[in-house]
């Protein structure tokens, strides 16, 4: 039975935005693990692994390095077959952990948030981090074409290796990311 991890910056967001996906995967017979910081929502999940070092808006590199180590240690024990990342910190640090351990990993760019609303040094840093961490992602999923185009223009992901899913507007577009 395939082990699938869903990881996000809050368990609230998984409950609100990814529950249908989680239920569908469970129904298909996958073993689904939710990995996120602890709030009132974990009680609702059956396979929940708490994250202690995810500071969702923090920019402290020491804290973030601890998050990477935490992901590494969880994945080493759990040995998931596929990891699905949502939101920026998991997209970067869970992706890096997957890259190091050779785990198949798919990131969803759920929106670019305040870092991309104002162009700053942080925007440049995040772009670089995304480039390194998404390089070995199996797929990258975008919720809107603007974010997708921005990532292609900034050479974070590559269009050539992409798979288009042509349907109505708002459809998820799934792209294969570029290997560095």
């Amino acid at each position: 039975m395939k082990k699938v991890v869903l990881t996000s910056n809050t368990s609230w967001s998984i409950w609100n935005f990814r529950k249908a996906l989680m239920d569908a995967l469970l129904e298909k017979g996958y073993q689904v693990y939710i990995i996120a910081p602890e709030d009132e929502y974990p009680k609702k999940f059956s396979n929940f692994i708490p994250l202690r070092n995810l500071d969702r808006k923090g920019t402290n590199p020491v804290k973030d390095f601890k998050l990477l180590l935490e992901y590494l240690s969880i994945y080493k024990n759990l040995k998931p077959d596929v990891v699905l990342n949502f939101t920026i910190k998991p997209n970067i640090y869970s992706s890096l952990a997957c890259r190091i351990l050779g785990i198949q990993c798919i990131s969803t760019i759920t929106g670019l948030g305040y870092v991309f609303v104002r162009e700053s040094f942080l925007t440049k840093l995040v772009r670089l981090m995304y480039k390194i961490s998404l390089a070995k992602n199996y797929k990258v999923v975008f919720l809107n074409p603007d974010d997708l185009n921005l990532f292609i223009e900034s050479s974070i992901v590559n269009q050539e290796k992409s798979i288009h899913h042509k349907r109505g507007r708002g459809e998820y577009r799934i792209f294969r990311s570029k290997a560095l």
Partner: protein
Amino acid sequence: MNTEYFDPKLCKDNEKSSFVFLMISRLLWDKGVGEFVTAGKILKRKYGDKVEFWLLGPIDKEDPAAVSEEDIKNWIEEGIINYLGISQDVRPYLCQADCVVLPSYREGIPRSLLEAMAMEKPIITTDSPGCREVCKDGYNGFLVKPRDVESLVKAMEKMLTMEKEKRIEMGKRGRQMILEEFSEESVIRKYQEVIG
């Protein structure tokens, strides 16, 4: 989107005397809360009790763009905003709303607008990434300039003074868009294909 959960059939007849603009969002400046409140202030001056501005969502202290509790208190005291706090089930509020607004600066795909559309509510949002994906200007709502109160006021006033039937028609088109373009099943299927 789960169109069975977000179903306008759940709403009872809406017999309010006032017109309700509802914004559902984490209370961040980047979501356009400031523009919503300022537009509210301007329209309140003109329309008084005929128009209400409801705000629903948590204060997110961790976010650098968070609105403070003090701000919200002031808006309530000034009589502009009806702050509804947080809710596990937003459907009863959506039922009461005549139009749902999200003047955000950037989104992935704005969930609160998808939910509003599924409930046949016309929307007002900005011509910005993510937001413009869910609104066809003049079709299921209005698109306004981001960070622009004047543009927002204009659109809200248009919505407010529009014939009721036309507004209801806009809302219906929104639900149709959800059924055709934003179905939960197709998204899930896509993830499953990738996972293998």
